């Protein structure tokens, strides 16, 4: 397993698993299985793109009702890439990106409007 942080903004984690891609895909997509290992309670994860047994891309955001103001908010994207290894297992590559993405959600705009000092300093 390896892990790196690229361009300040992306975390890539890779590993080789003994199981074939079809089985790993099930662990990534069957709700009961996903619930047992993947998504923390404070994260809202929505599928954006799926190619069975190859690629799964999901939004990975803080749940808005769990947010303590804006300071804890996260709005990122996680991509799982699966490929079959020579030994019939799965190489899994997890790319977590968007830590530096500008968010334009209504909550942010609302908060920014309420905070004219920050706006003025940002515009200076």
């Amino acid at each position, binding site marked *: *397993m390896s*892990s790196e*942080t690229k361009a*300040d*903004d992306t*975390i890539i*984690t890779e*590993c080789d*698993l*003994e*199981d074939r891609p079809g*089985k*790993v895909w*099930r*662990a990534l997509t069957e709700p009961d*299985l996903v619930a*047992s*290992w*993947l998504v923390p309670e404070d994260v809202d994860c929505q599928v954006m793109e799926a190619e069975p047994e190859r690629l799964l891309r999901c939004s990975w955001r803080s749940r808005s009702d769990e947010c303590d103001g*804006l*300071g*804890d*908010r*996260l709005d990122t994207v996680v991509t799982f890439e699966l490929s079959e290894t020579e030994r019939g297992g799965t190489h*899994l590559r*997890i790319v*977590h990106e968007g*830590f*530096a*993405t*500008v*968010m334009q959600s209504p909550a*942010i705009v609302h*908060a*920014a409007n309420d*905070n004219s000092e*920050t706006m003025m*300093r*940002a*515009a*200076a």
Partner: protein
Amino acid sequence: MIETEVFRALADPTRRAVFERVMAREMNVTELKGHFAVSQPAISQHLAALKGAGLVSERREGRFAYYRADPKGIVPLISWIERYRAFWPERIGKLKDVLKGMDP
């Protein structure tokens, strides 16, 4: 402070480098300029953006302004990235357990 501003401010590589300089010690624009191949107004713009994000504070002394990193500003970015650097390897460990318990 708005976390989005932190992310936006540090997404630019030059601005990030400016921030790292003033993290090391307090500097004025002229001193900073010596470290970069960009114009002084460009450096001032980067500093303004960093200030807007709460990452850098300014101190005036006569005609000069000195800049230094505000240690409180960087915390949200570091905390998310640090959390997820540890998170994924830990989740892969859990995934292996899940795979063991599944039908082939």
